[in-house]
């Protein structure tokens, strides 16, 4: 009896000792929270095993986030607000970084990360990881909005990729009149009520030479131009250049229809390339890509996106967590992810990497488009902006509200909420 009690005591002491020992000394578990990665070959298990091999005594558990970006955000908010969460490293949509930084949920990396570590990444993605002059995350993968077109159909009618809204609409009319195929749609994009639609609207605003947040923080600084941009999107639906179901379309729904050969144009992210070029794809070898058209030539720009890796301020192993972040955002890992998961690198050099270019001949082109891409407003209130705008914009797209009224309503709401947050 006495012996057993002694063993128990020793075990308890050992446990207590474990908790007090400095991090990195005993077996350590890092929890990594990220969205599920899809792709031809998930590179994740391999990468994490590699990291564990290089750091004996460290185990990395990866946990999946919910499905949509909006739900992921909600998950983080509920997890991080006012407590230390159960994870160390987290995947962040670029738009969340300022918000999480202001809320104090992220470890400030400014003094731990040297400027030359950031230099190899696209400047815009580094800008998105920076808020109030401090660095809060490292860029992990990158996205940009593009125009996909059916190169075969354009060639058949002697058309060039459209550079303006007008050219795009004209091309749709010509091709649909010539093909006489009722199942062939014109221009597909994302108009469902969610963050993806806000991105499409932002791109329309930029294409019309205006933006959502002015330099002084004013919402819709040039309402007249914003009204025009919205009227243009609504017009696409009203005139049949885009099918009505675009108002319920997300990335996948629109990608599928285009991938089945049922549309001439598609606005989407680079991940679509892998799928349309895959063996068995109905449009394999018949797709081209171009910058998004503008109201006038050269005005169009795709929104940048992607994700960063940040470290929870509540982590007990900041150094190990940073090592994991460095490893996953490093060249090796980004190459593996570009190969296995169709996630595009944030490191510019990889776009000229011969092995990668041999796999994906579009890389240099995408590099240029990423370089020309524009970030969504970098503000701690981005989610507030987006969720406030979503129903208003959606109401315009389906024709329930005139653009001018939607913009007036949205401005009134946002002015009120933004003022109450200062």
């Amino acid at each position, binding site marked *: 009896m006495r012996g057993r009690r002694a063993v128990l005591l020793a075990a308890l002491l050992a446990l207590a000792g474990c908790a007090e020992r400095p991090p990195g000394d005993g077996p350590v578990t890092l929890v990594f929270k990220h969205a599920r990665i899809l792709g031809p070959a998930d590179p994740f298990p391999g990468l994490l095993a590699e990291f564990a091999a290089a750091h004996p005594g460290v185990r990395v558990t990866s946990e999946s986030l*919910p499905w949509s970006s909006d739900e992921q955000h909600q998950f983080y908010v509920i997890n991080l607000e006012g407590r230390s969460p159960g994870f160390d490293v987290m995947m962040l949509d670029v738009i969340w970084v300022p918000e999480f930084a202001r809320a104090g949920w992220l470890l400030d990396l400014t003094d731990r990360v040297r400027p030359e570590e950031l230099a190899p990444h696209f400047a815009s993605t580094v800008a998105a990881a920076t808020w109030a002059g401090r660095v809060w995350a490292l860029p992990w993968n990158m996205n940009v909005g593009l125009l996909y077109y059916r190169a075969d159909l354009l060639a058949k009618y002697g058309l060039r990729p459209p550079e303006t809204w007008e050219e795009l609409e004209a091309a749709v009319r010509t091709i649909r009149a010539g093909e006489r195929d009722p199942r062939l749609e014109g221009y597909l994009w994302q108009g469902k009520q969610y963050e993806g639609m806000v991105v499409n609207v932002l791109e329309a605003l930029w294409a019309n030479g205006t933006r959502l947040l002015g330099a002084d923080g004013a919402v819709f600084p040039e309402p007249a131009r914003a009204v025009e941009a919205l009227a243009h999107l609504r017009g696409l639906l009203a005139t049949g250049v885009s099918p009505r179901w675009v108002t319920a379309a997300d990335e996948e729904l629109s990608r599928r229809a285009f991938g089945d050969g049922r549309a001439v144009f598609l606005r989407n992210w680079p991940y679509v390339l892998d799928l349309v070029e895959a063996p068995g794809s109905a449009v394999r070898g018949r797709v081209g890509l171009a910058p998004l058209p503008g109201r006038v030539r050269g005005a169009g720009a795709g929104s940048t996106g992607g994700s960063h890796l940040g470290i929870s301020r509540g982590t007990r192993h900041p150094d190990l967590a940073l090592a994991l972040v460095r490893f996953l955002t490093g060249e090796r890992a980004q190459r593996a992810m570009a190969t296995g998961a169709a996630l595009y690198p944030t490191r510019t050099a990889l776009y000229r990497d011969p092995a990668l270019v041999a796999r994906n001949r579009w890389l240099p082109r995408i590099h240029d488009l990423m370089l020309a891409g524009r970030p969504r407003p970098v503000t701690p209130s981005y989610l507030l902006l987006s969720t406030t705008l979503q129903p208003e914009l959606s109401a315009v797209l389906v024709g329930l509200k005139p653009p001018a009224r939607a913009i007036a309503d949205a401005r009134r709401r946002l002015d009120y909420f933004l003022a109450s947050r200062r």
Partner: protein
Amino acid sequence: MSRGGRLRDALVLAALAAYAVPFVWQLLTSLKPEAELLRVPPLLPARLTLDHYRVVLEQSLIPRALLNSLGVAGLTTLSALLLGLPAAYALARLPVPGRSALLLGIVASTAFPQIATVSPLYLMMRALGLRDTWTALVLAHTSFALPLVIWLLAGFVREIPPALEESAAVDGASRGQALRFILLPLLAPGVASAGLLAFLFSWNEFLFAYTFTATGASRTVPVALALFPGVFEVPWGDIAAASMLASLPPVLIVVGLQRYLVRGLLAGAVKD
């Protein structure tokens, strides 16, 4: 029985079977191979598979969430009954001062919208460090299950003639004994009914669970189902399997304990 009557019975059953189609369709979906999910018609799959259940049970949060739901709903039921039984007895049998006001208050709190208390409760749980624990959910759920349980049980107690307890008292039994040996056994079916409703309420509850839970430590089944992960593609088959698992206890209750469930349902509404 006449042939017409039999036919009529069969028709009603057929209509109700048609009514259950959404559920059956989901059951079928949960057993369909991935490749056949988006191909309808045909309505029936070429073969059945347990793959989706395997994925859900081995790779998702659902098993853990089922355990959490079971724990939270069980503890909620227990605490609502333990608190509610004495209160219901007092309200039904004893001259509690302000009885009718109390009853009104209790009925009113069953009508309380959760959305009105979720923000203060959130701040409360946050201050107490209870977020993402069973305790937070059990407390929040009890606050809604308790009035319901009291309301039901008070009605059931009133159905039992006080004369029974009184005659026991005449026979020399103490009040406590009378309660234990006379009232409680008679009340048992009512307790079962009230308990079942409390359990179902807690099992199904979403708003509080969504707000107070964060990880596998406390996330309940409805929340895990609402947030079922996927990227771009929605894993319909896995979601269907998870839905089936989430409705398992309610289904068992409906099939196995139907009598008590219906009794509770009726008592809640018809007593006045």
